């Protein structure tokens, strides 16, 4: 198969400032029909251009080295069959996003690992370890293995729409890693509850800063579904009583408003989210937004009205509400 691999390159050592800017280079090559995008890049590196830099190693989706943007979306080059990606004879390859480029397709992972380290990424068990193995259910371990299957490739971080604008967010990879502990019956106290972790994760930069855009779920090559894990930790945190924060209050206020009137009360939602009128500084910080909204005629109505047939909505809520929150991962504590 003849194809052009269009690579976004960057060389920090280029002699002029302009030369150091990213540029596109086309590599017209012939590859096997079942070749992966990585096979194509390796062929370029080996046969055509030794100056092309990229990371890769295992060729079988387990080492996590070769995450990059292929036709605009993050993925593993070794898991992507080239002939499924050709558009007008071209496959576009760029370095992963969010992280700064070192050279060509190689990005700097320092911030990625700092965030992983920030969640204390190791099992913390309060009390004595058992002599033999911990006795836990297979279901609990299989559930966790769905998360420990994460290979830290950075695809989710690359395409995270929050990290793109807010580098302080812990991000999908680190939060999925955190969930791997908060859902582990061996972590935390004797009942497997990781109180300290959930408290920390409820702080700003943590679980409440995700905007639920679902990009991380889409691009993860291992089915880890980081966003779903973040949502599960929100449930865990609220269940443990960590509801005194904007995120948890926002969730409550949102549910309450829709459940009561059938629509969102956009005026009261932010007030309730920050903790009511007691939190004047936070409310004051909304004033510029409120003035701009007013000037443009986008101020929500002061008098909030119910939707027609609100009873139907309330019935839906009544029918779904009594369900208790999803139980934590099943635990057979060795401590009784």
């Amino acid at each position, binding site marked *: 198969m003849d194809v052009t691999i269009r690579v976004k390159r960057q*060389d*920090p*050592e280029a002699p002029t400032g302009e030369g150091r800017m990213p540029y596109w280079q086309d590599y017209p090559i012939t590859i*096997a029909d*079942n070749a*992966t995008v990585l*096979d194509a890049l*390796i062929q370029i*590196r*080996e*046969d055509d251009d*030794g*100056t092309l*830099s*990229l*990371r*890769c*190693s*295992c*060729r*079988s*989706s*387990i*080492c*996590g*080295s070769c995450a990059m943007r292929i036709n605009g979306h993050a993925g593993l080059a070794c*898991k992507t*069959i080239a002939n499924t990606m050709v558009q007008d004879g071209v496959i576009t390859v760029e370095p992963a996003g969010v992280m700064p480029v*070192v*050279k*060509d397709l*190689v990005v*700097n992972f320092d911030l990625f*690992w700092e965030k992983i*380290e920030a969640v204390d990424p*190791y*099992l913390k*068990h309060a009390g004595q*370890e058992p002599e*033999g*193995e*911990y*006795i*836990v*259910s*297979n279901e609990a*371990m*299989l559930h*966790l*293995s769905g998360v*420990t*299957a*994460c*290979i*830290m490739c950075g695809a989710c971080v690359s395409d995270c729409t929050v990290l793109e604008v807010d580098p302080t967010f812990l991000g999908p990879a680190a939060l999925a890693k955190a969930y791997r*502990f908060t859902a*582990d019956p*061996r*972590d935390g106290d004797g009942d497997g509850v990781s109180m300290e972790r959930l408290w920390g994760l409820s702080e700003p930069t943590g679980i409440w800063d995700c905007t639920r855009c679902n990009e991380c779920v889409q691009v993860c090559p291992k089915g880890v579904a980081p966003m779903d894990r973040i949502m599960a930790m929100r449930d865990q945190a609220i269940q443990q009583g960590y509801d005194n924060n904007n995120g948890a209050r926002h969730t409550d206020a949102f549910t309450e408003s829709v459940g009561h009137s059938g629509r969102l009360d956009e005026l009261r939602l932010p007030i309730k989210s920050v903790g009511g009128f007691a939190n004047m500084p936070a409310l004051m910080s909304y004033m510029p937004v409120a003035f701009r909204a007013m000037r443009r005629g986008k101020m929500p109505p002061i008098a909030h009205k119910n939707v027609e047939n609100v009873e139907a909505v309330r019935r839906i809520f009544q029918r779904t509400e009594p369900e208790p929150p999803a139980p934590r991962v099943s635990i*057979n504590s060795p401590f009784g």
Partner: protein
Amino acid sequence: MPEDLQHDVLVVGAGLAGMRAAIAARASGANTAIISKVHPVRSHSNAAQGGINAALLDRGDDWEDHAYDTIKGSDFLGDQDAIEVMCRQAGASLIDMEHMGVTFNRDDDGRLGTRAFGGQRRARTFFVGDFTGQALLHVMFEQLIKSGVRRYEEWFVTSLIMEDGQVAGVTALEIRTGELHLIRAKSVIFCTGGCGRLFEPSTNALIVTGDGMGLVYNAGGQLMDMEMVQYHPTTLAGSGVLISEAARGEGAYLRDKNGHRFMEKYAPNMMELASRDVVSRAEQTEINAGNGIDGCVLLDCTHLGQALIMEKLSQIREIGIDLAGADMIREPIPIRPGMHYIMGGIKTNIDGLTNIGGVYAAGECANVSVHGGNRLGANSLLDTIVFGERAGNHASDATRAMDFMEFDVAATLARERRRIQEMMDRPENGDRWSAIRRDMGESMNRNVAVFRNEEGIEETISDLHDLRRRYENVPVHNKGKTFNTDLVFALELGYMLDCADTIAVGALERRESRGAQFRTDYPDRNDEEWLHHIVLTKGDAGPAISELPVTITQWTPEERKY
């Protein structure tokens, strides 16, 4: 002025063995650092899929049974004292890993679950789905973070510094910046993995280039049993990517083109779960006899059912779909024997110490020897954590009474900078590293594979001579400093050529068939003449050969049948 880098214990390589060694050395008080050419979680320990062996006493298993299976698997070339150490320690090391947080699959009672694996009479392989190595590696990295060991990530060791026969440190290239550094160390533990990329194809990751073996060999170390190269029975055609033995452990069949389970001819008792050398030879025999399809036989999982495959074999199913376009739930997948592991390596004692003062080795790059002529599946992960820990502990203890070796740091660093600069400055018209590596890999895979004979091995030895001449002029096309992988690959190729020499010379020397070494011109095992290790040291005209006895404690060599 760069800071003065020095450590009591410096571990080279951050896979399972390396991280285990570093954590142990740090825990027993040594100033410890770990250096790796890739980030630790990119290491090749990731690729171990099937599991880790241990005989747990409270399951009614016995370490002596595990030891016997290992010794028989090794075709009696493994040193029995070392195998005893490994099998006795296995249970405790396994439970350690579980306590660290590995998400091992469980049985119905919530205890660690097992699966059957090749060459063993009972199921003692503990596992995390079909990505056990990755699960262990990431947990070990968590512990490394916790330990506070200093990490030099994406640093590539270019030379081992020796002073009066004792190790004094290493020089290393910081890949991101292109800076060359010198790190002084009282002891250096090599955990650099195998050298599989000198074969083409191979299941091994592209980073598996025999760096540690090459460095130690060039410093006067001993490489032992290098001819013992494992061909794994189930690798995908084309890329050569691994399909775990776990498939057969869970009950998959091997079939020829007529659907016949041919293993009944070769191993009527163990069938598909005979040891790897036996199964690979059987497959190659069938393929050579025209009973395969396009150079492959078939791995049939269709009778295992979707539920089992999704729970226990989901990752290899993905690989089959991604790379072979076949879903093993619905159809058999084409597989063939492929180069996978090297039993040989740097000769060490049971504490990881080599014949060079202060130099240790553990994991695949080492040869303790616990695998002898053929490694059992799921013994490699065990090897890494048991002997990684022992090497770390011993190195830490030993350095307490030692001082750093005195030498001219500036001159040593300048000399190494010159050597690398000369390489960078070579004219661009020579053959590239990639062409030389491909030719080497094809020659090795043609003549030093499942079946070998004198004529073929000699052809490869002659090829290697030519390749080394070409290597002397290998150019580096990338002249920059930042993340210059072109330079790293050119340096790695030198290590690979050293390893290839010793493999070919070892294979020619051993005029018998034992374990993974099958000589069609000497088809029988010959204990009288060849029940010993072949040791290779660097000589003036290639590897010099000597021998060491095999340690036998309580298991007398006997005929090997499965």
